[in-house]
């Protein structure tokens, strides 16, 4: 029987062994256990074709997605056609890094000719006329679009329960949320429905679902990845990032999607380094900051214990553990909620029923706007538009929006001081493991509090990564977050890789 080894970038499976096993359910399962690096290596070595690989993932989706609902739209015929093309190109000598590797894309990223809804009923049936730069770059590197994944409506949420198309379930426990808003992408990767996926992170929406689903989630520095074609939520905070099974895969995907883009004037002009070269496994002398303020709030005790153990592991690997202070930590969430809702209220003004999306007739043009938006937006989106509109409205602008932007400056200054002393900042990704579906739906404030460790990276433009670091008593995954300064992706990837290689949390998969 073919054996597939995870991690390390190598697949120990003979060509004949795999081919003979291809007909069996087991082989299909093993192909779907592959991440990007392993799948790419297998394709390059001719151990399997892109058609076989893509077919395996499509079958896996067919088998498990009825229960999980990670995907909103799949395009099987289109994916298999692209896979056949990739196989032909490879036979002709094409060696692009992602050639023939399927990926899933969060449904907030525009895909030409493929329905894109942002999880909202107001965009039901919307087929974009162009493709987001990040997706285009993946396709240019040879990747195959497997399908579009579920998300909280317009990425507003921490549980994927706010999707207009039904909740996604956590592969580790179907009664629990996968986190959000990129819950579909995280669940798809955790459940072996895709080797990797793209998500978007405005306040933690890549890192938190990655943590709750036991996979890797990377939020690049603001400006590192083009936002062109990303359906806008909070424009000063949004970044696109990979959700993967390993740190190597996160580096591989970042390599492809990073860089300046003429279509997005907020991309940084800095060169894109070779991220794989940063994965040395060596972190001797690296200074890891532990913010004291992150361990005083109501963290689930098992999460805190796992993080403390991980800190010891980093010390064992040669890192220097440095206690640091980030006194404005408790202000980050209120600042985030004022900034993000203000930006959202402006961004979502475009859904007016005229140029695209749902349109509900009214007697006057304003009535038309009101009816369309009242019918098309879900409750959380309305709540955030209302909050943002209030914070920007006459009489409240200075007290809320301007004040929040000033406190944002103070939070940034604290991180600048911290990064003068340490290379990375370590914390839990989320204060708890996956919570039960419905548990926080009627309590918007409780839901907000789940983002307590993640929003600072967005407010300050930092990069961050969440990696698996343990399990709680219920068998639910725990995530560890490493934050780095703007354009510090190499250092957080190096630290994450060293930890990952010295532990085996990332090798555990849910039983489905």
């Amino acid at each position, binding site marked *: 029987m073919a054996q597939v080894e995870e991690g390390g970038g190598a697949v120990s499976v003979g060509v004949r062994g795999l081919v003979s096993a291809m007909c069996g359910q087991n082989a299909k399962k093993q192909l779907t256990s592959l991440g990007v690096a392993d799948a790419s290596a297998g394709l390059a070595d001719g151990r399997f074709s892109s058609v076989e690989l893509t077919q395996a993932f499509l079958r896996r989706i067919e088998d498990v997605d009825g229960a999980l609902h990670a995907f909103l739209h799949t395009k099987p015929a289109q994916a298999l056609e692209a896979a056949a093309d990739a196989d032909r190109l490879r036979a002709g000598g094409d060696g692009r890094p992602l050639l023939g590797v399927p990926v899933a894309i969060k449904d907030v990223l525009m895909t030409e000719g493929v329905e894109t809804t942002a999880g909202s009923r107001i965009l039901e049936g919307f087929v974009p006329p162009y493709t987001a730069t990040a997706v285009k770059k993946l396709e240019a590197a040879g990747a195959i679009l497997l399908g579009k994944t579920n998300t909280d409506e317009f990425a507003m949420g921490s549980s994927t329960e706010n999707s207009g198309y039904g909740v996604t379930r956590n592969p580790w426990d179907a009664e629990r949320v996968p986190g959000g808003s990129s819950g579909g992408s995280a669940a798809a990767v955790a459940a072996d429905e895709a080797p990797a996926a793209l998500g978007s992170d405005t306040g933690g929406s890549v890192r938190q679902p990655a943590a709750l689903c036991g996979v890797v989630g990377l939020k690049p520095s603001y400006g590192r990845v083009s936002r062109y074609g990303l359906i806008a939520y909070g424009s000063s905070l949004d970044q696109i990032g990979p959700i993967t099974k390993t740190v190597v895969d996160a580096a591989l995907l970042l390599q492809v999607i990073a860089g300046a883009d003429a279509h997005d004037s907020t991309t940084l002009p800095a060169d894109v380094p070779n991220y794989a070269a940063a994965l040395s496994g060596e972190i001797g002398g690296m200074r890891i900051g532990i913010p004291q303020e992150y361990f005083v709030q109501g963290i689930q005790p098992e999460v805190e214990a796992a993080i403390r153990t991980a800190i010891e592991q980093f010390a064992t690997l040669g890192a220097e553990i440095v206690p640091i202070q980030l006194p*404005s930590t408790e202000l980050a969430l209120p600042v985030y909620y004022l900034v993000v809702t203000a930006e959202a209220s402006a961004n979502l003004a475009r859904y007016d029923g005229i140029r695209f999306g749902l349109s509900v007739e009214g007697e006057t043009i304003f009535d038309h706007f009101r009816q369309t938006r009242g019918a098309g937006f879900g409750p959380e989106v309305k709540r955030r538009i209302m909050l943002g509109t209030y914070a920007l*409205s006459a009489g409240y602008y200075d007290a809320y929006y301007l004040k929040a932007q000033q*406190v944002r400056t103070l939070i940034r200054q604290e991180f600048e001081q911290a990064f003068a002393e340490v290379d990375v900042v370590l914390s839990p990704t989320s204060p708890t493991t996956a919570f039960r579906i419905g548990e926080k739906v009627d309590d918007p404030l409780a839901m907000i509090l789940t983002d307590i460790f993640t929003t600072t990276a967005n407010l300050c433009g930092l990069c961050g990564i969440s990696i698996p670091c343990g399990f709680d008593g219920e068998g639910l995954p725990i995530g560890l977050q490493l934050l780095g300064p703007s354009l510090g992706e190499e250092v957080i990837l190096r630290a994450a890789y060293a930890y990952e290689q010295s532990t085996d949390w990332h090798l555990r998969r849910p039983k489905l």
Partner: protein
Amino acid sequence: MKLTKDEVRHVAELARLQLTEAELEAYAGQLGQILTYAQQVQSVDTSDVPPTPQVLPLTNVLAEDAPQAGLSVAQAVENAPDADDGYFRVIAVFDDAGK
């Protein structure tokens, strides 16, 4: 802090959102709760602190002044609920009084 239903109605009007009576009621409580939480920021001394509207060290990013292919008119209106001959059709914004 709890907003009144009239305050919520006013904000909904600014945001062009049609809300039901039940939504007005629910948002009055929930927005009040979130705003109470957000008021923490008001306790911070920010005199002489400049605001951070965005984090990039970039200013005046300009594109090359050269024509580029964009969407065609047909592509631009293909998702429109109501389009006519390459135009978006909307309800008249002004009434007929001026005619």
